[in-house]
């Protein structure tokens, strides 16, 4: 296939179409709106369902309805819109339905701004909606990876009857890059035994997330958690760069992971033995990889466009076995490669400590505005 120059949001939309997307429901919000616009043209020309909903609340519930039929369904949004979808996401998780959510993060909290951010990591990775459930969360660092992970998202959603989020940000959604799109998949023609379709020649089916019997609701919760253990065992994905002989490791996801790679290369050019771990699945988190790494490197640096949300998962995984430092930019400001390189050099120079919290050390050395 030829490579095409595409905007991130449009590439994701076309990738979903080629993965067999049967229905899309969305609402305009910057910086994801191009996905909605693209699909408003593309879906009808293929005879597939597209609705611009009256709100993100309605959009996620249209997704909920369509997901009950077992067809491939998706929505996309950002910040405030994702917040509005949390009720529906919890219901979808509670009904054990597959769906794909594209989250193009922007600066917050509140209305914030439309610049790239990673401050919605906790919201998506930690569940967001009420109740015990874990979405699978995939974090792309390029337009190509957004395409690939969107296709994967549909497969994982069906395999685990789970919400799968592609956790992107405004920079990846808005940038244009060459990418290779997947081949057009045929639409699904058979649907799972739980899907509603009208009870033709079979017992009726119903799908609900209510169970007033706590013991039975507990059983359902156990089922979700055991399924999550399977996800943790089989679906952890990450990329590592220059780690073979590294004495120091940088950890960053999504676009910050990509910025970190530039800094790691610059550091290597100066002879600094540093490598990069870039989680692709931030949920399930590559905890074992980091735990093993914490026993062989001298220090770690976590870089994020937030105040250290993934940092907490790194600290849990490494449980004090290795000094960890943190550097972040907030509110829609990106980490620059020069800043990342400076932080690598600070890490290498030391002193290194496992006392206190890396976030406090970072805040203390960050000049007060």
């Amino acid at each position, binding site marked *: 296939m030829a490579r095409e120059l595409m905007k991130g949001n449009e590439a994701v939309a076309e990738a979903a179409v080629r993965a067999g997307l049967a229905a899309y429901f969305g609402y305009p919000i910057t910086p994801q709106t191009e996905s909605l616009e693209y699909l408003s043209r593309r879906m009808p020309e293929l005879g597939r369902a597209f609705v611009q909903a*009256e709100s993100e*609340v309605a959009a996620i519930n249209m997704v909920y309805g369509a997901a009950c039929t077992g067809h491939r369904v998706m929505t996309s949004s950002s910040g405030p819109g994702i917040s509005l979808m949390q009720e529906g996401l919890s219901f979808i998780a509670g009904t054990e339905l597959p769906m794909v959510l594209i989250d193009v993060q922007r600066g917050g909290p509140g209305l914030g701004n439309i610049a790239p951010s990673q401050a919605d990591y906790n919201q998506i990775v930690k569940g967001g909606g009420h109740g015990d459930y874990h979405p699978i969360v995939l974090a792309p660092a390029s337009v190509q990876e957004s395409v690939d992970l969107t296709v994967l998202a549909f497969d994982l959603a069906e395999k685990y009857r789970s919400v799968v989020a592609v956790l992107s940000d405004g920079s990846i959604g808005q940038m244009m890059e060459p990418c290779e799109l997947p081949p057009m998949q045929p639409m699904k023609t058979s649907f799972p035994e739980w899907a509603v379709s009208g009870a033709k020649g079979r017992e009726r*089916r119903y799908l609900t997330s209510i169970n007033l019997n706590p013991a039975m609701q507990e059983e359902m919760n156990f089922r979700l958690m055991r399924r999550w253990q399977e996800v943790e065992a089989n679906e952890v994905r990450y990329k590592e760069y220059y780690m073979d002989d590294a004495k120091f490791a940088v950890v960053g996801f999504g676009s910050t992971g990509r910025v970190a790679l530039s800094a790691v290369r610059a550091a290597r050019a100066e002879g600094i033995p540093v490598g990069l771990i870039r989680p692709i699945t931030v949920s399930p988190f590559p905890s074992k990889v980091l735990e093993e790494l914490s026993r062989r490197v001298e220090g770690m640096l976590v870089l994020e466009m937030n105040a250290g949300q993934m940092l907490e998962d790194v600290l849990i995984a490494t449980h004090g076995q290795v000094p960890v430092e943190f550097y972040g930019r907030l509110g829609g400001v990106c980490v620059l490669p020069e800043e990342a390189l400076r932080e690598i050099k600070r890490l290498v120079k030391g002193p290194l400590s496992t006392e206190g919290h890396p976030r406090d050390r970072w805040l203390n050395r960050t000049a007060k505005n």
Partner: protein
Amino acid sequence: MMTVNEFETMVYTRPDSLTDVSTHYCPGCTHGTAHRLIAEVIDEMGLKERTIGVASVGCSVFAYNYFDTDFVQAPHGRAPAMATGVKRVYPDRMVFTYQGDGDLASIGMAEIVHAAARGENITVFFLNNTNYGMTGGQMAPTTLPGQVTTSSPNGRDVETQGYPIRTAEMLAKLDGASYVVRRSLHDPKNIRLAKKAIRTALEVQMRGLGFSLVELLSICPTNWGKTPAEALQWLEEKMVTYYPVGDYKVHPAAAEIKF
């Protein structure tokens, strides 16, 4: 008619589209009447194997236990959005929502207005009993001025708690709505008229004529603190006065439907 023995003829049976279980509804509640009417019409139209119902949050949250058809259950107020999702994937199925007045006219107002405005080809059965039944009888958007509820203990004061919403009249203003009517379940004559409206609404949908809604004035004896008979009388005297029974929007194509 099924023959029971040579001397008896079965004239009244449970519709095929209802499951053979007791409901959780309170004695005297008109949910049972509404369920039965809808199920009878589904049977008559031969739609049982093509129906996907959408239950809402409120007393009718467990409607899926009683209708012997495929069903899904929506978050509070979101049934029209969920029905939209189902219908857009399966345009040839019969998709209906069953919602109360707290669900539809309060938390779900955006979803119902926009489903109607889009002319979404679904049918909405809207049970109006002027209170939140499931949570114990709080004030709803439909609670009448002066009506005592557990959250308007001195009677609904329109100065501070606002005025009731006449949902059918409001939705009828939308160009996308094809069939919007109000009926009442307080006596046999009105129940027969309600069934006719339910049939018309589902005919509208199955002919692809767009959005249809039947508001059904209903009673809540338990939360109203009345016997079922008193409650039916109160409905006729107070509710029908404020919420007149009538056809608020009948698209010319819907008016031509004969069955």
